[in-house]
């Protein structure tokens, strides 16, 4: 029963699109209500499944899915000519990422309530994007995984192109093409994975039982890892992110930074590192060197920017760099930290972009030099932004602190000088993060208020709800990290043992 419900996670959004197709596009409020209802339904469903998984315990996983500890596991033949299966399942890591996605999608639907243009198409695209992200976090078959993974490119471009602001064509193309470049790097290696494995299978579960030939791993691992890292904006493939985010409408920025960038990190962990651990040990130290840009220089670039979305994009780049630091550490604590950071940063950046979008809707500018004193008029949104900022600089009490401290401890445990140096630099860079966040908050929220802002009104109930839910999630992980960390630890234990920790 539960595993059937599990499949509904991606079917409901798709079904919503089909159900809304016959409704004429001028009935906007009806359409929006249906989409909001569907988003809420999925959120409740994922919440229920997460709770089920928590009460059952990770250990009670389906025996078919060994060595992975997957619940709700299901594997049926799909495309015979390719030997692809419809194979889905979730362990602790997947279910939390799914929960994160459900929250962000729900919030994304609510914040786009007043988007300009053809709303019917926009909400249909959001639901399609949601389908693709849910699919990525559910699928355990590489063809299915890739189908969902690449599907996002289609929705992303149309949403940015049709509903974005500023240089939307440039930003949208840059984003879509860079992501497509990443996914074609992945696709190029997948065929090798299938034929070189010797068992002719696309199943992550099956492939994890064997050791892939070393000469294949040596060329495929860097390609695949970088392919996934493109969507997590690892240097030198970070350039799409600032332009893409700034051109995108609020909901797309939230989804892109909140969940889509996690898809890359998740793929690095679940596919690249898990299936090719031998090559990972050889190649990952080089990745650490790349991280100097992400975690150390990222905050400095953010410091120089005036556009709120650019600042947040560079802040995301630096936070995602930390995920890679945790992955590259290859220690249990580091991996736990990386997984926690994926989830924590999703909520964090969702909150960031949501408040920025709401402020932008009122002030019609994102340039912090033009703003000032808006705390007086928009106290609620101002506080929301400050909370997101504090969570972002890793203040204890919020989820960011838990994740980052785990990553730093894990990375420092690794017995390599370069990793330790990068770790120390990364810890120091938190200071820079604090500087740009406080400086932004100060310029935007305090000081003299331009006269044109005198008529601004604070958040309405819908917007308050979004902010409150996101802040609650951040605080819950920050204050009670134990249960989530335990579930993650158990879930990634098979990855540790495969890597040989």
């Amino acid at each position, binding site marked *: 029963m539960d595993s059937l419900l599990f499949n509904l996670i991606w079917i409901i959004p798709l079904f919503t699109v089909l159900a809304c197709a016959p409704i004429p596009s001028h009935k906007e409020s009806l359409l929006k209500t249906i989409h909001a209802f569907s988003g809420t339904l999925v959120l409740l469903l994922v919440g229920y499944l997460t709770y089920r998984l928590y009460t059952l315990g990770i250990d009670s996983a389906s025996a078919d899915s060994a060595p992975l500890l997957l619940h709700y596991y299901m594997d049926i033949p799909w495309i015979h000519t*390719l030997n692809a299966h419809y194979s889905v399942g979730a362990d602790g890591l997947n279910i939390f990422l799914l929960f994160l996605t459900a929250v962000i999608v729900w919030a994304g639907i609510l914040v786009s309530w007043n988007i300009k243009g053809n709303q019917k198409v926009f909400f249909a695209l959001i639901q399609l994007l949601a389908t693709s992200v849910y699919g990525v976090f559910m699928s355990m078959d590489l063809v299915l995984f*890739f189908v969902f993974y*690449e599907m996002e490119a289609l929705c992303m471009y*149309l949403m940015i*192109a049709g509903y974005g602001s500023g240089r939307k064509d440039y930003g949208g193309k840059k984003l879509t093409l860079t992501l497509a470049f990443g996914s*074609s790097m992945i696709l*190029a290696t997948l065929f090798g994975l299938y034929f070189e494995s010797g068992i002719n299978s696309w199943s992550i579960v099956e492939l994890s039982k064997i050791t892939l030939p070393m000469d294949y791993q040596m060329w495929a691992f860097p390609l695949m890892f970088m392919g996934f890292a493109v969507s997590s904006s690892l240097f030198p493939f970070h350039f799409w992110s600032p332009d893409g985010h700034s051109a995108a409408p609020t909901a797309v920025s939230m989804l892109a930074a909140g969940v889509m960038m996690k898809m890359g990190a998740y793929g690095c962990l679940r596919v690249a590192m898990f299936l090719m651990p031998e090559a990972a040990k050889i190649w990952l130290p080089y990745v650490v060197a790349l991280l100097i840009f992400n975690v150390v220089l990222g905050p400095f670039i953010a410091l120089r920017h005036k556009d709120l979305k650019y600042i947040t994009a560079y802040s995301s780049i630096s936070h995602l760099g930390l995920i890679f630091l945790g992955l590259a550490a290859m220690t249990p604590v580091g991996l736990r930290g990386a997984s926690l950071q994926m989830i924590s940063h999703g909520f964090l950046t969702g909150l960031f972009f949501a408040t920025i979008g709401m402020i932008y809707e009122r002030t019609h500018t994102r340039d912090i030099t033009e703003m000032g004193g808006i705390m007086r008029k928009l106290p609620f949104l101002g506080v929301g932004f400050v909370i997101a900022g504090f969570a972002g600089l890793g203040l204890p009490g919020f989820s960011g602190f838990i994740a980052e401290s785990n990553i730093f401890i894990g990375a420092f445990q690794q017995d390599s000088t370069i990793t330790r140096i990068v770790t120390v630099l990364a810890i120091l860079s938190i200071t820079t993060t604090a500087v740009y966040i406080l400086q932004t908050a100060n310029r935007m929220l305090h000081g003299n208020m331009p006269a044109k802002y005198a008529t601004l009104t604070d958040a309405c109930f819908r917007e308050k709800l979004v902010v409150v839910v996101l802040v609650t999630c951040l605080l819950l992980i920050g204050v009670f990290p134990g249960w989530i960390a335990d579930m993650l630890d158990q879930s990634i234990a098979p990855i540790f043992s495969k890597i040989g920790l």
Partner: protein
Amino acid sequence: MFSIPNFVIPDLLLLLFPFIVIGSRLFCTDRSKAPWRIGNIGFILIFILLNLIPLASGAGRFFITNWHIDDFGVLMREVLMVSAILGIWLAKDYFDHSGDGKPAMHQIAEFIGTVAFATFGGFTVVSACDMLTFFLGLEIATIPMYALAAWNKRDQYGSEAATKYILMGSVATAFELFGFSYLYGFAGSIHFEAIQQAVAAGTSPLLWIAVLFLFAGIGFKLTLFPFYTWAPDVYEGAPTPVTAILSVTSKATAIAFLVVLVYGPLAPIQEQVAPFIALLAGTTLFVGNLGALKQFRLRRFMAYSSIAQAGYIMVALLGPAATAKTAIIYYLFVYAVSNYLAFFIFGIIGHHREETFNSLRGLSKQKPMLAIALAVAMFSLAGIPPLAGFFGKFHLFFSGASTGHYGIVAFAVLNNVLALYYYLQLIKSAWIDETDDHLNPLRMTKRQRGVIGLLTVAVIVLGALPFLSDNIFAGFTF
């Protein structure tokens, strides 16, 4: 007593069919829609009959010793029939508004008859068991295309394109014949089986020359690098339905020719030919993609896009027979549907406006459904999941990779990013650019709406539910 086996009934019907359609002109006026209706009924009937043919097991069946029908042949026939049916649907729009003062429906009977002949040529290619029939099939498929390309004979560009096409095509035919004659010289027989045995027994320079010329000849028809240069001009000069038929039927026939050749007489040396095929595939898709980058006229753009698609199809020829044939047939179905969808949309644009990217401006505001259909067609051609084009390309790459050609597969996959760029360029015109006031409004008939809706759904369903299309292959043996 000579009896006709039931599996050749569709072929014979198709052979008779042009005479029926053209003959119907004797009994109806020039403006009558009767020929078009007869054309529809006939093509759809043949398509249904093809589906009723019981599956052959293994080797297939023979009819008068040189007519051979196997499962690959039946599926290729279905692809060709789908293309013919969609082609005459598209032609209806063209003939409804035919230019230069001609009445509506003028000479549509001849048009349909010519399409039927071209399709029959394709049937012959996939049924041939000896070089003579093989060559005849290719010519029957090609010569009607020359006539079709010159359909609009008063049009300066149309005539220029047709002249170019016929000259290039004749040279290609000469290459082809030269190759065949050397192959005959090498093997001493025109029968495929005998050639295959001779090739398996050992190779000689004679054989390599033959292979080179055969590939060069078919390279013209399949628009492979460096023989693709005619395509953009002809695609642009010919009437829209002809361009669509050219890009699907003609390409399908040419690729069927290669499949028959590579997995028939040349099967023993497939491994030695593989680097050559990979080179042709790689250069063709790269050149096609590069060429498309800077185009702003819709049909020229589609020409380069279809050149690139030919390169992608070639990748599949590197694999073993069954995988490659599955991949190619699936891809051709998908390609036919996506390409026709694009041409239906461009046809509507072309009736009211100039056929350039600029005419697409503001489409998403004026006709949102048309803009969505366009995006679906383009993303499918670009190979973005969950649309059909992705699974088509995935099958092709799967086939290529199954024999370890990861290099060319990786090259093709990375090239896809280039392809995505220009497809996005077109989508951008429709979705982002503001409309111009001087653009004529677009009008669609109910039938056009219906066909575009049908094809859009087909692209989505063929992709999103590949297990449906999978059933096409259930029980077939290649």
